[in-house]
């Protein structure tokens, strides 16, 4: 065990000494690999920041039914069965059986509750107080989760049909389908995630190719040393190991530089985002990746470097045999 550690320590030191040589081109290679890694790392940082926001937003189809301001509370409350009936009819028009009895939920939001929520959510408490009287109407919120009738949750035209019927009810001022944009955002994020995956895979191959070539040059430069080592009884593992460490170190350093560059770029970017978010009364900021994600990306960078070195060493040292 001690001998094994000693051999690895020797290989690590050997790799560091070679990479630290002025003409090894290590810094340039780190820069090239870091540029390739920075793009997917930046994309991942943005997605990681947007993900919690998108998860907080409901992607259930949701219809808000706003009543006229002068609608009496009793009349407002009496609308509930009629709303349920409209939804039920829409469901009956679609599939039959238990699947039709979806998880449709109807919530009455009184104008007082709405005002309280407005105060608490938006940080506009002072502005609301300044209004004097409550300008908000009573409303119903209809959530169509697991809805599977003619107006399927994934079928915007079906939901629009329900909205039209609800809008025709007496005392209803307006009807708003709330969740379409959230679904679009979720779909967009999904597409972006897939695109980022392709980008990461492509640039991962670039990283492997760069490390492959770097190690190839090292093998060529150290050809004499490798041959002498073989003549004095070095095993293949002894010869390969420093190159593996060199590849992993190259990947690791490049990963660290890429993460540093992305973190540094967040500062000016956040200034612009803060301006934008303020318009929506939001405090949204792009934060650097967490410790676990950072460690995982550094590990991935090192693994890509190791993989490039592995391919290169196997291919080029085999030729020297």
């Amino acid at each position, binding site marked *: 065990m001690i*001998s094994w550690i*000693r*051999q690895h320590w*020797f290989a690590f030191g050997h790799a560091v000494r070679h990479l630290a040589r002025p003409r090894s081109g290590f810094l340039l290679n780190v820069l090239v690999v870091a540029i390739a890694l920075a793009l997917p790392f930046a994309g991942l940082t943005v997605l990681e920041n947007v993900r919690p926001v998108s998860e907080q937003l409901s992607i259930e189809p949701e219809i808000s039914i706003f009543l006229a301001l002068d609608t009496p509370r009793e009349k407002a409350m009496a609308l509930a069965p009629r709303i349920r009936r409209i939804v039920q009819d829409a469901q009956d028009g679609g599939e039959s059986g238990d699947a039709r009895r979806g998880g449709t939920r109807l919530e009455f939001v009184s104008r007082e509750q709405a005002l309280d929520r407005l105060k608490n959510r938006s940080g506009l408490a002072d502005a609301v107080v300044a209004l004097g009287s409550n300008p908000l109407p009573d409303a119903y919120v209809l959530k169509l989760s697991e809805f599977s009738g003619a107006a399927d949750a994934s079928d915007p035209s079906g939901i629009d049909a329900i909205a039209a019927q609800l809008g025709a009810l007496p005392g209803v001022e307006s009807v708003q389908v709330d969740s379409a944009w959230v679904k679009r955002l979720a779909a967009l994020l999904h597409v972006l995630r897939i695109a980022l995956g392709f980008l990461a895979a492509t640039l991962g191959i670039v990283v492997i190719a760069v490390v492959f070539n770097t190690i190839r040059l090292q093998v060529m430069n150290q050809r*004499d*040393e490798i*041959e*002498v*080592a*073989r*003549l*004095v*009884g*070095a*095993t*293949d593992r*002894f010869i390969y190991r420093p190159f593996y460490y060199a590849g992993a170190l190259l990947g690791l350093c490049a990963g660290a530089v890429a993460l540093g560059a992305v973190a540094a770029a967040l500062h000016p970017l956040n200034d612009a985002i803060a301006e934008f978010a303020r318009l929506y009364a939001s405090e949204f900021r792009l934060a650097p990746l967490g410790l676990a994600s950072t460690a995982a990306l550094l590990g991935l960078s090192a693994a890509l470097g190791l993989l490039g070195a592995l391919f290169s060493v196997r291919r080029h040292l085999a030729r020297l*045999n």
Partner: protein
Amino acid sequence: MIEFQDVTKQYSKDAAALSGVTLSIAKGELIYLAGPSGAGKSTLLKMIAAIERPSSGSVQVNGQDIGKLKPSGLPYLRRNLGLILQQQRLLLDRNVLVNVMLPLVVGGATRADAEKRARAALDKVGLLDKALMMPQSLSGGEQQRASIARAIVNRPQIILADEPTANLDRASAARVLDALKAFHAVGVTCLISTHDEHILDAAGRVIYLDRGRVVDGWHDSATGGAA
């Protein structure tokens, strides 16, 4: 210890480096492989180190058949051999001490132990005072002695020296040969190839090669040189 049985090495259809070589070398012998350039001396030494494999016949070193040796077994064979090549093949970007330590390091020795033994080996070849010098700053003879130190640092059972005195002046050649004979004196089997008949002496057995064949297996250089 070393057995060649009807060994042929064919690099191409027309050129045989060795043809039907059969010979036996016992433990502790001093062997001079003599013959003109291209006689097959280097090929014979390379076969013992498994750098080359026989086209036919068998080469046995310490009971191991070189032709059947797996690549994974090569390092362990070579750790029992001390190789001294015509071109010293010292690593020019490392000092002499580090060069001599190399066989010990690849074998897993600690740095302290490797350095101690490398210094002892350099002392034996008279180069201890130049341990920290770079190889380029040594003379040809000194570089050859440094490569001898590297070859013997692992206390090998067999030393294979391929033209160790080539390109050296007489005084340097004599020092190199003296160093090799000193190891033979303590029981190490030494094979020294040379095309220079002047270095042959009665201390060793001479195997004369010509065009890949052994033409005079038992040659007493004291009675008239290689035949």
